[in-house]
């Protein structure tokens, strides 16, 4: 079992999915770790920009025109439809059609507030066709998506370099455990032992002790002393 990746924890925290002690631990880390805080700020900035872009696109949609087009389409289909089929009538009787209200966009509180406010400098002008704003909105969304991609591609890697990998090693995020340990040792023709010696603070330093004597083919040991 491995500890959750710090980046995953940050994302979970940002999404409000990190609860209890984990959230508290990360909150404390955020108080002391500037880099982590900057990463969280980046997530927040990114989310804000994406929301702004989506909002801008939503304002570009002309609701009245859209519903008018749908209604016109329904009427055209109704005129061309086959009224002989009683189970699937494509056109309502005339009296029903008269009672049916026209489709329209109902202005909400926000629209009313906008209508009451003085016109903004960037209000749509007659020469600014509906296509232009939409394309700019799409471009803004694409830029925001690119920003998200750059952010995720440049975040710290979880990868551990393979032996022999000449790539840049990852940067330590925590204080490493003290001491040193032998992972494996090939004594060759010699005899030896692996043990440790204690440091000042109780940490253990690895010691490999190899006798400087060769074991001959006959099993005799000959000490090699170099002057």
């Amino acid at each position, binding site marked *: 079992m491995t500890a959750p990746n710090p980046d995953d924890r940050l994302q979970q925290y940002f999404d409000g999915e990190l609860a209890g002690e984990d959230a508290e631990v990360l909150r404390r880390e955020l108080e002391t770790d500037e880099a982590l805080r900057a990463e969280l700020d980046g997530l927040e900035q990114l989310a804000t920009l994406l929301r702004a872009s989506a909002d801008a696109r939503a304002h570009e949609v002309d609701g009245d025109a859209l519903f008018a087009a749908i209604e016109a389409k329904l009427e055209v289909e109704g005129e061309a439809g086959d009224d002989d089929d009683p189970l699937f009538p494509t056109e309502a009787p005339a009296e029903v059609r008269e009672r049916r209200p026209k489709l329209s966009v109902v202005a909400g509180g926000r629209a009313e507030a906008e209508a009451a406010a003085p016109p903004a400098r960037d209000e749509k002008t007659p020469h600014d066709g509906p296509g232009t704003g939409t394309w700019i909105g799409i471009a803004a969304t694409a830029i925001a998506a690119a*920003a998200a991609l750059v952010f995720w591609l440049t975040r710290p890697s979880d990868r551990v370099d393979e032996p022999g990998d000449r790539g840049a090693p*990852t940067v330590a995020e925590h204080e490493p455990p003290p001491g*040193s340990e032998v*992972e494996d040792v090939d004594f*060759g023709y010699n005899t030896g032992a692996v043990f440790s010696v204690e440091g000042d603070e109780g940490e253990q330093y690895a010691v*490999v*002790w190899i006798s400087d004597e060769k074991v001959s083919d006959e099993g005799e040991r000959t000490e090699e002393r170099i002057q």
Partner: protein
Amino acid sequence: MIGRTLAAAASVGALLLVAGPARAQGEPAEAARTVAGQVLIVLASDGDGGIDPALARVPALRRPPFDSYSAMELLSSPRIELTVGEAEELELPNGRRIRIILREVTDEGRFRLRVSINRPGQRDYLPEMGVVASPGDPFFVAGQSYRDGTLVIGIRLGERGGS
């Protein structure tokens, strides 16, 4: 609308421009690729020389089993600079060569190394060993006979509290 959209696009652009350099400053990848260290080559013997004052800052050498020697002389203490994946070789006083390769810096910030001590073209002493050490913490290879004593080789990379 256009102004708002352009402002949003400009903000995103600014974010991109700021995020790039900030990332580069936060990742000292090149600095982490190369690590400074030191190799202590010590002659431990039963002579009368006592403990070399230069070894006062290596308390591990005064603890068992090293404390069984009455004399310790620092023969040399060459400084090394290891780059990930590249071998560094030093000649020992007995004619053998110690070869050290920094394989990686772990996520914890520890150094993973391969070490061998042999005569050129031979595998006559220590063919190879793997060791992991924290910054500033040494490991030792001892046992080679030399003159009237035994060679104790200590290797240390980086500094404690950030290398």
